[in-house]
């Protein structure tokens, strides 16, 4: 009885999530400081091309196409990317408490951005530095974790991630010490808190591009990834190559997360909590948890960003809201969780 009640029909759940997401995105387009009504939004969406050359003074059109639509799409994309990364890393590490920044991608991206701010680069270069920093951090962690002579490969990766993540955090703190307290330090603080406030259509295009590239290996492996839940020997005996699978999942998760952090700063908890909730709804199979997590993550991030830009006159950083929401939700989920024998 209990089993059936929790496991909703997967197909029905996915379809309803997609519909819910579409409705939520439309509603979010009607929210904002600039007064735009929903009928106006719908009308502008339906007729994207203005009659004649685009009047630069056409404010409603600018607000919708240049500000709100990229922002709404970006929050959806980041939510989906972070949730997918969480699913992938939880699979690789056989642990439902793994999060996308376990291997140091957030710390590496943060260091890249913080250095960029300290050296006075423009915002595009700062974002590129963040992206590169995130990738570089994981490459180093993977190399160190592979070289460590520990019997358990996943444990050595986790240890390398923790160690290198701390080192990167220390370097960030060092930069904050020498940064100018009036001009650079506030910019560093705001960047670390995260924000969707300055997303342009170009940012969105890059985010989608890299995000999709990162999700592709996850999608290709959505069935075989389940085998990672077994012991190393069993995976080998089934005929799968564990190192290749692990590397592919980590690479995909890192690309998606790096792109997200470069676009919107550090946002935690989504990659940890959403896969948990998805597993409770549709069971443990990666092929189901991945799409459901992505949809739920997209919804969550959209809700959080819409809240963050409308509950106060100034922006509430999304990272703050996800932490305030995520921690209690995680506790609630864990209280209902059963022990799984490993």
């Amino acid at each position, binding site marked *: 009885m209990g089993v059936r009640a929790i496991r909703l029909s997967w197909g029905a759940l996915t379809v309803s999530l997609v519909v819910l997401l579409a409705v939520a995105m439309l509603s979010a387009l009607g929210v904002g400081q600039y007064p735009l009504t929903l009928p106006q939004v719908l009308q502008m969406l339906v007729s994207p091309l203005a009659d004649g050359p685009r009047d630069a003074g056409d404010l409603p059109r600018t607000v919708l196409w240049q500000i709100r639509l990229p922002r709404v799409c970006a929050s959806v994309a980041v939510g989906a990317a972070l949730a997918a990364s969480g699913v992938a890393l939880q699979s690789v590490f056989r642990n439902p408490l793994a999060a996308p920044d376990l291997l140091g991608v957030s710390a590496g991206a943060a260091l890249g951005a913080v250095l960029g701010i300290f050296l006075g680069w423009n915002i595009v270069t700062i974002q590129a530095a963040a992206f590169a920093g995130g990738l570089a951090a994981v490459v180093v962690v993977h190399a160190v974790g592979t070289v460590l002579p520990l019997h358990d490969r996943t444990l050595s990766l986790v240890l390398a991630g923790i160690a290198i993540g701390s080192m990167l955090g220390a370097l960030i703190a060092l930069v904050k010490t020498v940064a100018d307290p009036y001009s650079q330090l506030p910019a560093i603080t705001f960047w670390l808190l995260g924000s969707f406030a300055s997303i342009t259509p170009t940012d969105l295009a890059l985010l989608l591009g890299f995000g999709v590239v990162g999700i592709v290996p996850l999608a290709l492996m959505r*069935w075989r990834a389940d085998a990672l839940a077994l012991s190393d020997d069993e995976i080998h005996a089934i*005929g799968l190559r564990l190192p290749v699978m692990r590397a592919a999942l980590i690479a995909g998760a890192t690309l998606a997360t790096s792109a997200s952090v470069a676009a919107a700063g550090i946002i935690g908890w989504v990659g940890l909590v959403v896969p948990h909730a998805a597993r409770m709804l549709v069971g443990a199979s990666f092929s189901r948890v991945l799409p459901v997590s992505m949809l739920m993550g997209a919804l969550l991030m959209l809700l959080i960003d819409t809240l963050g830009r409308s509950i106060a006159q100034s922006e509430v950083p999304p990272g703050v809201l996800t932490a305030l929401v995520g921690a209690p939700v995680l506790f609630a989920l864990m209280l209902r969780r059963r022990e799984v024998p490993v």
Partner: protein
Amino acid sequence: MSGPSQTRERLRTQELLRTRELVFGYAGRGLTSPIDLVLHRGEIIVVLGPNGSGKSTLFRTLLGVLPPLHGRVEWSGRELSGLSARELAMQVAWVPQQPGAAFDFTVEQYVMLGRLGRLAAGASPGSADREAVAQVIARLGIERFRERTLSRMSGGERQLAAIARALAQQAATLVLDEPTASLDFGNQGRVLDTLCGLSGEGLGIVYATHDPNHALRAGNRALVYLPGGRTDFGPVADMVVPERLSSVYGVEVEAAYTAGGRVVLSLAAAAVPVR
């Protein structure tokens, strides 16, 4: 001999596994003297030895996880090191001692894991895979657990699910590490009978057990670990006898006969009388 019976004869004597002077262990230290064993189709090899003697290490070497220190392992006549992961998966399937998974799969999802080695990148399991899973679940009599998750099953039920998963792989040989270790008396018998049935269908089986009686119930040949790192391989009738077992386990073993004429092995009278 006529054609079909010749084929049958050849099939029956087809070699699934052969080791030549195999020495296995860690860090250059062999755990036993060189082992020569052969497994044919429809045969069961039982591995007997005291705790910590290296039964699991032997299995890891046979499966290619650990490289042999000396000698060769051959699956269906082909050297182990020359087999790709997928080819090896078609030769042998592995059932670990205490099966479990990091995530709470249903039995159906868990058994499907055995089919994943055959999937191409991006492919989903097809009807052939689903049919194989259903067949195997029926064969082992665990249909009523199909939708149940692993965490809600007993150790014995999980063991059967693990055997089903290995069977779903459709390999020629099954290797099981102490499959009866955490089972109750009744379930032990059931698993052993299942193994007998599977070998009757042509599967080759290698399993380790701590109870020599199991070898008598389900086993054709036995590999026994003797003190000093020596091993012996031969028919169960020769190997699983009180004199040899006494030196294997270092205790007095005696044989008894049931009313039905079956042999039962047990420990001799305790050295210290129980008050």
